[in-house]
């Protein structure tokens, strides 16, 4: 069942009609066709016409999504999540677990495998896609153990000279009593530190929601890619609205003011490339979205792999130091 967002209503209506017509023209189980041959052709034409209309509507809607609409698309439950990317793009994938100190945080997933035949380390935040997996992965909100697992993986990659692919999709770090008691801030800081110090290339892709500190912990890479309708923000628009507007209903205004879209962030040169999404968003055709990410990673990886560790680190530092600097 496709889940429609509020602003997709016109498309939803057209597609419901198409589904009804399809049902009408299809032969019932074990029975004969209810309508004659001519009638069926007519229905076929009607379906094609409606489909064209739906696609046009979808294209028009997605060509001018507002920031707040993008927030909803980025959080769409049927959007491909980190594990979908890993399972599709990585062969011979072997998940690794635990921070060697306290626990295995399922909000952060990762391991070793091959990308295009090359050994790599992958790491990502996973939100889950149904109630069970969402609970298992804590909705993609990591605890310190998660970031410490990431540090482990980054250091492992460094020791064996393996490039790192990260897939970022998180509402943010988990704001819980246990997480704070075990040093959430320190764990995030160490993860950023480890990424910036890594002697191997890191390619980070924001695939859905890049939620603040919990996202940058895994995204301080040499290349940062962002899906066309992904968002990346210092604070959720909802929280920003309640703090700056003192009113929870201003999330739409906050989403605009925060400049959290891929297009805005490319403009500010805070992300390197935007990965195009299939018509109507990644959730309509997850395979196509994953393929597009794979293609960009394939293009970017070889040249980065040729840099020696010190050149790589120097380039990475310069990249971040230049961000938001006056005159850059």
């Amino acid at each position: 069942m496709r889940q429609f967002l509020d602003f997709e209503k016109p498309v939803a209506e057209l597609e419901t009609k198409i589904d009804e017509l399809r049902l009408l023209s299809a032969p019932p189980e074990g029975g004969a066709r209810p309508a004659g041959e001519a009638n069926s052709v007519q229905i076929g034409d009607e379906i094609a016409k409606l489909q064209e209309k739906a696609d046009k509507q979808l294209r028009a809607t997605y060509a001018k999504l507002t920031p707040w609409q993008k927030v909803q698309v980025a959080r769409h439950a049927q959007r491909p999540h980190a594990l979908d990317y890993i399972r599709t793009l990585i062969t011979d994938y072997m998940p690794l677990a635990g921070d060697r100190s306290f626990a295995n945080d399922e909000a952060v997933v990762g391991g070793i495998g091959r990308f295009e035949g090359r050994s790599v380390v992958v790491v990502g935040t996973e939100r889950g896609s149904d109630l069970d997996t969402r609970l298992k992965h804590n909705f993609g909100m990591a605890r310190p153990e998660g970031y410490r697992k990431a540090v482990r993986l980054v250091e492992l990659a460094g020791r064996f000279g393996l490039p790192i692919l990260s897939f970022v999709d998180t509402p943010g770090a988990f704001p819980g009593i246990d997480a704070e008691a075990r040093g959430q801030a320190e764990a995030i800081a160490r993860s950023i530190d480890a990424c910036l110090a890594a002697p191997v290339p890191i390619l980070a892709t924001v695939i859905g929601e890049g939620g603040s500190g919990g996202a940058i912990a895994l995204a301080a890479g040499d290349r940062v890619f962002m899906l066309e309708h992904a968002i990346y923000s210092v604070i959720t628009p909802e929280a920003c609205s309640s703090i700056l507007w003192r009113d929870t209903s201003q999330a739409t205004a906050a989403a605009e003011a925060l400049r959290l879209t891929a297009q805005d962030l490319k403009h500010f040169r805070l992300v390197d490339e935007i990965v195009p999404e299939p018509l109507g968003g990644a959730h309509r055709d997850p395979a196509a979205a994953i393929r597009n990410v794979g293609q960009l990673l394939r293009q970017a990886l070889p040249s980065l792999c040729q840099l020696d560790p010190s050149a790589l680190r120097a380039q990475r530092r310069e990249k971040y130091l230049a961000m938001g600097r006056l005159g850059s």
Partner: protein
Amino acid sequence: MSWLTTYVRPKIRNLLGKRDVPDNLWTQCESCSQMIFAADLHKNLNVCPHCGHHMRALVTDRLDWTFDAGSYTRIELPKAPVDPLGFRDQKRYTDRLKDQRAKTHLDESLVVAHGTITGHKAVVAVMAYEFLAGTMGAALGEGIVAAARLAVLQHAPLVVFTASGGARMQEGMISLMQMPRTTIAVQMVRDAGLPYVVVMTNPTTGGVTASFAMLGDIQIAEPNALIGFAGPRVIEQTVRETLPDGFQRSEFLQEHGMLDMVVARKDMRETLGRIIGLLGRQPVADAA
């Protein structure tokens, strides 16, 4: 040295004059509710003489208390883009900045100075909570990077006093990018083999805590400072539980292994001096 001549124009603190404390004012301690004579409070480093509660300190006071004989050289920090997003909530960000500058006589939420601490050379960066709650924007990031560069250049340790409400929301993702940028600053000091000491003061939260503030070689906090990533209100709303007493306070963090020590304000200079003395590069014995 070229960046020094461009960035660093020394301002001698003495020229600015000491802050005058009106001696006929009373302040009430927010902890024990006792009335304190303003002049007495200031003489006692803004610590309540009755209960020892550490009240907030202005950057200028902090610098006076930290450097020997209250003598130091402030450096001018590189300028950062002003209002890069064109941000406006109920008020324009540019207007907020203007108001803050007029109110605090500071350019931004960070001041950097160099001088000596118990005779040891040091670069000290102090976050100004009084300026937009010490939030982290591009100017703060530039300032931390400049402080790190100055430390490397002077071959001096870097001491940072933190106080922050977190990200500068009005700078959006540019604010978030100060987390990697300030982390790079820490790495520059580390690469140069110089000590990096963090003193966390009340409150230190959000992106500041989750970047340069938690990466010190030595982690110190003032007593009873609120220190955390998420703010207590956000946590309470998420877990729907009342937070335990003393949660996210200095002593709690020390118990949980996040701090080396909790140090009273009156002992801070001496403690910093000892650390710098102990960690400072020892003269290498000649091999010959």
